[in-house]
């Protein structure tokens, strides 16, 4: 066998170098990138309820007592201040259908709570045209804005309780609301017992979800930012029901023909009052006069019949005032 010449061996060795280098070139040139990945978001902490640290007092029934009207209700300091300013500033909601919401057709805020604020302004200014400033506020802003004097009153489905009485004052109760549950019309849910294993939504940071769990421990709590966000979850099939005040539920049900409010006793009592700065006792007294005038001349009933009765489907009755504070 013929031995390869040195130059032949050299040529083979040269080829031996070239092959892996070319292979390396091909591998490097064909090299792709690692797949793009999205960093996992940090786990969100969900406030399943509670929110506040809890009351430091007991709601023993006396919390619904307000200041009895006395004397000329238009002569007090707070009312004089408002008259001098030329307008009553009321903190209201604009996203709670039937209580206080903006009518997209004309941009005006309308509802049961708005009627209350309008009646109060009417009494101070007679009439209130152009003298009622509706200041849209969040639930969390109600007490701070009253305390710092930014607003004169709150007419925003505000529950009267002893804890809040320690911070602000309230009128007599103008509506006895209570927690109920909204469900699908044909969902088969007829009472609280049927809520077992059902996903019930309530706003995070409220006591509503705790109340449901107390009454039906087998219900599955779901939280969202607010009542409307709960309704979105309900309509998208991510919750089987929504639980909050019956008045709010009435507004939600009025926007969805496939939703009904369960006809059950109130899970909790939520008496609504008009919130006022703790120092403005004379304004509270004036509001209590207005509420009784609305009872007498039928304006309260008219407002209830217009806004809440079609959805709640029960005749409403204005609560009797309790004084003695």
């Amino acid at each position, binding site marked *: 066998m013929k031995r390869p010449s040195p130059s032949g061996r050299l040529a083979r060795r040269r080829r031996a170098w070239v092959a892996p280098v070319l292979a390396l070139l091909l591998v490097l040139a064909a090299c*792709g990138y690692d797949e793009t990945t999205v960093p996992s978001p940090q786990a969100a902490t969900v406030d399943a309820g509670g929110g506040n640290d809890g009351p430091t007092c007991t709601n023993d029934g006396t919390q619904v007592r307000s200041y009895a009207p006395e004397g000329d209700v238009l002569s007090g300091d707070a009312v004089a201040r408002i008259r001098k300013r030329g307008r009553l500033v009321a903190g209201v909601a604009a996203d709670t259908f039937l209580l206080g919401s903006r009518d997209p057709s004309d*941009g005006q805020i309308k509802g049961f709570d708005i009627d209350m604020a309008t009646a109060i302004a009417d009494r101070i200014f007679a009439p209130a045209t152009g003298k009622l400033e509706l200041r849209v506020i*969040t639930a969390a802003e109600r007490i701070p804005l009253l305390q710092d004097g930014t607003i004169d009153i709150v007419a925003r489905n505000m529950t009267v309780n002893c804890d809040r009485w320690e911070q602000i004052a309230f009128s007599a109760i103008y509506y006895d609301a209570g927690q109920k549950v909204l469900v699908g019309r044909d969902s088969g849910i007829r009472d609280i017992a049927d809520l077992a294993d059902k996903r019930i939504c309530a706003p995070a940071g409220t006591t509503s979800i705790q109340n449901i769990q107390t009454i039906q421990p087998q219900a599955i709590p779901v939280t969202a930012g607010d009542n409307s966000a709960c309704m979105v979850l309900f309509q998208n099939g991510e919750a089987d029901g929504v639980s909050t005040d019956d008045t709010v539920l009435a507004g939600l049900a009025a*926007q969805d023909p496939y939703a009904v409010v369960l006809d059950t006793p109130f899970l909790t009592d939520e008496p609504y009052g008009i919130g006022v700065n703790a120092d403005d006792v004379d304004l509270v007294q004036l509001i209590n006069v207005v509420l009784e005038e609305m009872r007498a001349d039928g304006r309260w009933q008219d407002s209830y019949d217009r806004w809440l009765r079609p959805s709640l489907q029960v005749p409403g009755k204005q609560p009797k005032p309790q004084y003695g504070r």
Partner: protein
Amino acid sequence: MSQQAPHPQPAADFGEDVPRLLNRLQVAAVALCVLFGVLAALFQVLSWQANGRAADNTEQVVRVQEIQTSLLRADAIATTAFLVGGLEPPEARAAYDAAVDDVLRLITDAADAQPADRQVLADLNVEVRTYTTAVAQARDYNRQNLVIGIAYLNSAGDALRSDALPIVQALVDANSERAVDEMDGQSPILLLIVGVLAVGGLVLVNREISRRFHRRVNVGVVGAAAGIGLLTLVIAVHAGTRSSANADTRDGAYDTAVSEASARTAANDAKAQESQGLINRGSGAEYEELFAVAAETVEQNASPATLRLWRDYVVEHQEVRDLDDRGNWDDAVALATSSDAGDPTAALDAVDAAAEQVVSDAADQAADSFGSGGVVALALAVLTLLGGLVAAAAATWGINQRRREYS
């Protein structure tokens, strides 16, 4: 010129197999030359490819930032139109649809351009569909004058920011990282090392030969070393120049494109927050905080011309907020939704258009810069490979001379 062939003079070991040694030295010299040629050419080809990928990745960065901007522009238009009431202005609807169409087209383009992004872009597609569905539901409810529409709009905006935008941001980050990595793909030092090693090896070969023959210099081997040295100098200087140009582009046009796109995205986000603050009456302060965050991003990233337009818009925005904060919500909405020249919407449109132009120009400039010089780079790579082979031939010739002298 005829040379008198000297007789071989084994330096120390008279029993040494000189022809065998010469063979080995020849193999070593040829290997060094070929290895230099191949490796140096390879590094240059890889660097040229890196620059091409830097250009492609720059275009992808701009593309995904355009997705980000278009999404927030769609949201700004949707939220502003929502304020008008149930009857959405047709031009606002058309602008929203155009922005969403842009997003969907860009997602497809981006998936075609970068396979590594495809899975994430598919996920983004799902989130965009979720967003547009929620906006459509919000619009339907608003048209029926039902306030639940606000909740759907909020839900759409929240989902956009919590689910879709993090995906887009991940795409921006990943492609920016790829682009910057590729910009560093030039390797003058590596070329210098390869060249110096080759030259050093050839010098050693020459020394081994000179120790066994009377000639201090083997013309072929030293010529190969000199050629490789010269070639190394040329390609290293070229790579250094390209590296420096890449750094200039990265700090110049590329940075301008990316920063301006961030500013444009933030400007549209700010307008959406302005509208949200009016839609969610009573929550103006909350949305104003989000506006301030977006505004800070614009201030830090916008080009001077865009920044001037942005500040014009901020003056208009402040007027909207002042009206709303004084309780004059209707006038605030009228101002925020007006399409008249000088009003907030037109002012924001001017910011958007100016920023879009800056991004487009700077991105083209950056991509062109990274992609330029390809012919020279490839020609040098071929020259290097040929140079290595010529050097190998020279070294072979030089050592063959000694072999002939020995035989």
